[in-house]
Every structure is written in structure tokens, then in C-alpha cells.
């Protein structure tokens, strides 16, 4: 699935995409009382392990993420920064009591990865419900939006990725 995501991002963004080695989920990010992982702490660890030649790094994790103030997050990004993180835990059908469906999972993962990368390139949430930069607070929101940027987000992103496009 990661390989497919790599291809998809490469095609869609016209940027060189590489899969780095696995990184263990940092032990310090586990919140025992909530049985969830603190996404900000993981983000900090990724930032520490960033390869020298990387422009942006997206972490993909199979743990349920949260931040202290929110019950959960699908992912987290540094706005205009280097790293972001996407969790697939809540993108899985089985999290919501349904049968597993890799097709659906992959589509959701693509959307959330494009969304978090968009933040890394400086895009903020979009008011267009169908734009991938729309804020998703539920998996329904994720499914409702398209896996592409709207015209204006696309234009903004195009400008930002210019120096690295292949």
C-alpha cells in the first residue's frame, strides 16, 4: 500500500517520492490513560530523523493519534514546515465496525497524505467541501471530499512545489 501511495503522490504532485526505512513508534508518545499516541511527540521524533536531502517527510502510522486537547486526530502537520503525520487507524473500515476494505482505506490514505502535505507546503484548510484541503473531523468528511485539490489550492500548491518538480 505504501508503494502505491508513493506512485500516487509522485504522479499527482510531480515530485520525487521515496520510502525511507521503518521507524519505530516512539515509546514516549504513548498516552497510557487514553490508550492513544501523542501525534505532536511523534512529529518531533520524525523531525529528528529527517534525511538531509528531504524537502518534506510524511509519516504513516497505524496507531490511533491524539493531542492533549482533542479526543483524536487523523494526522498532524507543521504548517509550512518539514514534517507531517497520518494515522490509518481510524481510516480503516474495521475501526467503525465494518469489514476491512483496502480500496477504501487506500483512497482515504491518499486524501489524508495529500492533505497533510498540503499543510507542509503552507496550505490552510479550504472552505470547499470537495477539496482535499477541507478539514475532516469524521471519516464521513474524508469520504465526501475528492482526492484532489480545488482549483485555488492547486494553484497555490503549484507555486510552492515549483523548485522541486520533476
Amino acid at each position, binding site marked *: 500500500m505504501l508503494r502505491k501511495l508513493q506512485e500516487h503522490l509522485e504522479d499527482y504532485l510531480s515530485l520525487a517520492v521515496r520510502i525511507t526505512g521503518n521507524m519505530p513508534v516512539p515509546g514516549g508518545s504513548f498516552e497510557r490513560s*487514553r490508550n492513544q499516541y*501523542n*501525534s*505532536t*511527540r511523534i*512529529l518531533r521524533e520524525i523531525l529528528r530523523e529527517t534525511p538531509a536531502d528531504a524537502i518534506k517527510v510524511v509519516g504513516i502510522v497505524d496507531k490511533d493519534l*491524539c*493531542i*492533549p*486537547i*482533542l*479526543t*483524536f*486526530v487523523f494526522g*498532524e*502537520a*507543521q*504548517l509550512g514546515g518539514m514534517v507531517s503525520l497520518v494515522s490509518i487507524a481510524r481510516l480503516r473500515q474495521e475501526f467503525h465496525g465494518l469489514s476491512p476494505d483496502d480500496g477504501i482505506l487506500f483512497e482515504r490514505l491518499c486524501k489524508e497524505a495529500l492533505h497533510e502535505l498540503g*499543510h507542509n507546503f503552507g496550505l*490552510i*484548510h479550504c472552505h470547499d467541501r470537495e477539496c482535499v484541503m477541507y*478539514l475532516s*473531523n*469524521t471519516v464521513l468528511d474524508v469520504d465526501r471530499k475528492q482526492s484532489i485539490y480545488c482549483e485555488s489550492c492547486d494553484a497555490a500548491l503549484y507555486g510552492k512545489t515549483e523548485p522541486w518538480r520533476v
Partner: protein
Amino acid sequence: MEPKVNILIVDDEEIVRESLANWLEEDGYEVEAAENGARALERLPTKDWNLAMVDLKMPGMDGIQLMDEIRKARPDTIVIIMTAYATVDTAVQAMKKGAYDYIVKPFNPEDLSITIRKIIEHQKLVKENLYLRKELKKQYRLHDMVSKNHKMIEIFELVKTVAKSSSTVLVQGESGTGKELLSRAIHMESPRRDAPFVTVSCAALSESLLESELFGHEKGAFTGADQARSGKIELAKDGTLFLDEIGDISLKLQMDLLRVLEEKEFRRVGGNQLISVDSRIIAATNRELTKAIEEEKFREDLYYRLNVISVHLPPLRERKEDVPLLVEHFLERFNIEMGKNVDGVAESAMRLLLDYGWPGNARELRNVIERAMVVTKGRMILEADLSIPQAPGVAVSDGRGKSLSEMEKEHICRILHENRWNIIRSAQVLGIDRVTLYNKIRKYELKKETVLNM
């Protein structure tokens, strides 16, 4: 582009500040964070904060104390208290002290999004409302005058333009329509605003007194002139000379005044030295000057000298839409002057005010409101608080078979008698200005004895 929304996060835990800031920034908010109350207070003056998200439990100043300080320094900033340990007591205390919301960590992301959007939307509406109100008032206001009548607004616009020149202005209108207020507004809008605005009430004085009042006199100019004195024209040097009731001055003084307007210089009574004049002249009258010219009571050449710019103030009965606006204006003013807290006028009382004909115009309305504010016991002015003449048919005295002017004469007589010929008080009761009262006294040849013999 929409204005930036500024959010201040105050929490002693770094991970909370960082994660919440990341989350809010993704939504396009401008976020800053402070680790304690003291640091937060340092940040307060740097920006127009829309929202402060404050942790309840912090070492040093706690969230509630900080909220108090924020509300003092920035009353427009909305405060949300965040806590991990919810108790009913703290929640109640926070809300009582003015927190917009109290949220218990962890919070559902969807709910937090909605809460923040609602706050921003609410603030936007409040700001818009304030702005629109200000705009509305701006359009209707010229110094101490308010109106939404199109004729009046045109006059306000004209005043703003002509004020910049030095041209003579003739203001016409019934008593109480605000001729002096308008003249003051012209003065205040003009480059002469820092020089004096000098008023001369031409009707209240005899010819010789008015002459000396206007031109001043030298020592020994007439019996009793034991000292030289400058006249109002001299006092108005570089400023504005307001000649009220210009229609009432004698033909001789009209001639003298015309000379001043033409030559830009004059002599004091009994003096030889020419004194130059550089004041703007605004004249006002409630008389039909053209009629007075026909009757040869007013010099035509003086009329044209004065009437360079002509303003005709409409009577209040022709701009009834201004009654509620004027009422609000007077309420605001008297609330301050009298230290009162009157909120408004009850609907039935307002209907009465709207139905009345206002022969004394805005001044009469002002007097009615002033009196009502003195006598009212509550926060609203009621029908009973208003002293306006009764509707026709319930007249106090029997007026059958009498003409309007006979009724007027009798009424004025009675009021003068009741007020022991105190002109100021009688004019107030009658809802007319002193000058008009003097005119009526002259017109009906009223004398103190006449009243006493009644």
C-alpha cells in the same frame, strides 16, 4: 481578503501549546502561545486578540485570574477556559466570570472547530454592527445636529463645503429649527474654528444699545459711556460673527452693517479710527426677508450682501422622521448632563411626540424631553411625563369664537403672568426661544401691567 484571526494559547505544558497551535494553524488562524499568565499579559497589547484559550490550572496566576486580567485589558477578546479536571464548581465560576466556554480536555475536534467558528462569526457580526452604526451616525450628524431627512443632509453637505470659504451665509428658518446650531457648525467646520464665535441677538436690544453692542464705543460717546468698549464685531476678529434675528434691526443699522460688509472696516460709536474687519458673518432670521423688502422694512442691497449662501432650515413638522432620532440624541445628552439612566421613550409616548405639530421645532422637543427626564421615575419616558399641549378639543380654556392670534395672546399673557414675567422661564414653558417671545410681546403690545390687570 478576510482579516487574520488571532488566537492566544496559554498553557504551562509545552506539548499542549505546540499541538493546539499546529491544529489551529492548519485552519488558518494566527496563533501565539504563552507558558503562563504573566507572559500572556505581556503579549496582550501586541495584537487584537480574537480569542484566548486559557488553561485553568497553571502555576502562579491561574486561568480564572488571567481571564479577569484579559477582560480588563481587552474586553473584546473572548476567553475559553480549558481544563483536564472538570468540576461543576470551577465551570460555574469560569462562566460566571465571563468565560465564553469551558472545555474539558480531551475535546471532540468537530465540536472545537464549531465552537471557534461560532466565536469568530459572532465577533465579526458584532464588529460589523458597530461599524454600520457608526457609519449611520456619521451620515446623520453634524456637530450637535442630527437628521436623516434628505433636505437636512443636503444642508449638512453644503455646510461642509461652504465652511471652507469666508462667504457670508444667511440662515433662514422658523424659531427652534437650529439656526444658531447650524451657524456654530459652519464655524467649527471652518479654518476659523480656533477663533471666537460671537453671537449678537439683534431683536433683544434697542437700536442704540445694539449699535454700541455691534460697533463698540469710545469713552464719552454717549451718556453713561464712561469707558471705551470694543463691540462684538471687534471681538469676532478672525472668527465668526453670528447676527441672530437680522430681520429685526432698524434701517439705520442696516445701512451701517451694509457699510461694514462692503468696506470691511468700521468706526466705534463716537470714534474716528477705522478698524478693519476680518470675520465671517452669518446672519439668521425667522422672517421672510423678501416680504420685508417689499414692505421697505429691509434693505434689498443688504439682503443680497448677506444672502451669498442661503440655507433654509425646514421646520420639524416637515421632517417628522427626525423625531425619534432627535429624542435619542437628547436622551443621550441629558443622561450625561443629569447623570440619569433613561433608556428610551415608551411606544405610546413616542406616538404622542410623532403626532404633535412642534410649532417650537427641535428646541421645543428638546425642552419637552428635558422636562420629561426630570420628572420620569423609571427608565422609560411615559406619556404622563410629557408636557405637550393637549390635542384639539380638550383645550384648557374655552376658545370658541376667538381667533388664533387672540388665543395666542391670551396664552402668552397667562404663561408670562404665571412665571412673573421671567422671560427665560416663560419661553421654556411656551417652547419658543426668548427672541420669539420678545417679538410676540411687542406684536401683542403686552405689558406687565396688562397682565396684572387681567
